[in-house]
């Protein structure tokens, strides 16, 4: 049983304003290095420590890693037979050559109609806790098969897909190898487990930034090092993107003019989360234009201009949103830093699997 006591007064309209004022003052002081009574700016070593990569991706206890499962998941991921018309695979939108996106403002249905949201990258999802821009999926296993059965995406009824897979000897063997204890291994749940296992192996290779954090002092240029300082200080990016994944996985209303999509709010049934979308990773961001959940900005310069105060002030605006003020040189430094998160060219893309017959 639960109860909720009505509040006699709402502090929510007062406290955030006070909070913003306090934080804005503190940030300004930090930005000029004249702070008194505020937390000292962290050392470069402390900052770098926040961005150290973990050694290996985690796998859940109820879907542990095996090479057979990952290989099966890779085949399924790249197989257009998972779609109703056998013409588009998961990789059709999550293209490894395009940093696991599609380069379009918003995703496109197999018949060419625009969907409402930008295709998100798949980098480093093993560490994520919620999936899709609105977080409606609580696990990769839950997420993995949803686009398959969704009209306007892959549009394949699950029953007919499972029948199709059971008729392919290579898949019968692949599922049997991946799930050796199952009497009937070709099921929706096992397909989801295999795809999720493969997706957890999609970890971004070491970037110049990672090499710099690991101790290679010359791995990134001087302007990028200044950009890293801005990222963690004056530009305030780290408020939401400050972790080795360059997202903390939270949902924020960043003041984009609403075009009919309320994002996280309806999923939670919490109006305060309206207009909020998941903070995207910034890894490979220079290869992932256009930007935002609906691809409305073509360049990183436009994105930075948005954060310089061109956002909508409304009740749901994230408490982390404060207008920044960068000089043109600082904007260049920030972008120079973001470029160091790019996958080295030699490591871009993946080898396509041989599909089962």
């Amino acid at each position, binding site marked *: *049983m*639960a*109860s*909720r*006591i009505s*509040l*006699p*007064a*709402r*502090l*929510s309209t007062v*406290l*955030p304003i006070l*909070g*913003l004022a306090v*934080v804005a003052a503190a940030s300004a002081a930090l930005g000029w290095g004249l702070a008194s009574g505020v937390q000292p700016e962290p050392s470069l070593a402390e900052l770098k420590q926040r961005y150290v990569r973990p050694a290996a991706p985690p796998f859940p206890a109820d879907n542990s890693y095996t090479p057979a499962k990952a290989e099966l998941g890779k085949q399924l991921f790249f197989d257009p037979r998972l779609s109703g018309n056998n013409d588009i695979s998961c990789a059709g939108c999550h293209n490894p050559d395009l940093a696991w996106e599609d380069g379009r403002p918003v995703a496109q249905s197999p018949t060419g109609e625009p969907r409402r949201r930008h295709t998100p990258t798949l980098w480093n999802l093993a560490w994520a*806790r*919620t999936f899709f821009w609105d*977080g409606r999926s*609580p696990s990769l296993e839950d997420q993995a098969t949803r686009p398959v059965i969704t009209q306007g995406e892959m549009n394949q009824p699950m029953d007919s897909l499972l029948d199709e897979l059971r008729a392919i000897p290579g898949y019968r063997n692949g599922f049997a190898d991946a799930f050796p204890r199952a009497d009937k291994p070709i099921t929706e749940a096992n397909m989801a487990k295999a795809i999720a296992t493969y997706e957890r192996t999609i970890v971004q290779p070491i970037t110049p930034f990672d090499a710099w954090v690991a101790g290679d002092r010359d791995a990134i240029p001087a302007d990028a090092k200044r950009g890293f300082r801005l990222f963690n200080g004056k530009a305030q990016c780290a408020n939401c993107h400050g972790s080795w994944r360059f997202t*903390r*996985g*939270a*949902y924020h209303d960043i003041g984009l003019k609403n075009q009919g999509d309320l994002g*996280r709010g309806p*999923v*939670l*049934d*919490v*109006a*305060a*989360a309206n207009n*909020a979308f998941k903070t995207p990773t910034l890894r490979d961001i220079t290869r992932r234009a256009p930007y935002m959940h609906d691809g409305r900005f073509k360049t990183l310069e436009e994105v930075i201009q948005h954060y310089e105060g061109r956002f909508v002030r409304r009740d749901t605006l*994230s*408490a*982390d949103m404060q207008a920044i003020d960068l000089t043109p040189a600082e904007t260049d430094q920030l972008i120079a830093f973001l470029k160091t998160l790019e996958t080295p060219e030699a490591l871009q893309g993946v080898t396509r699997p041989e599909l089962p017959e």
Partner: protein
Amino acid sequence: MTRIWGALAAVVLLAACGGEDAAVQVSQKNKSFNPNQVKIAVGETIALSNDDKRTHNIRVFHPEMNFNSGSQDPGEVVRLTFDAPGTYYVTCGIHPQMELKVTVTEKGSPSGS
């Protein structure tokens, strides 16, 4: 079967609380729980205090408890009473990286945070 609203939960205004509170106190600040794990006995209560500058949304998904606080504005306290032993994870729907591990033991077992 999932027991909807499996816990006694209430939201009260922190500012209105003057007296001592026997509940285990957990603060939410800078998008983190502090402490981020507690151990209590069946029937005991945790008071989750939003000391942050942002709205939170307390969630618990567990066979014994399915709880959604709705909006928890700065200054509000969500109280959760656990009536079955087990390990529970309290998260925030808006900031899912926030996680509080609650170990609930039978009465008489050693407990503490």
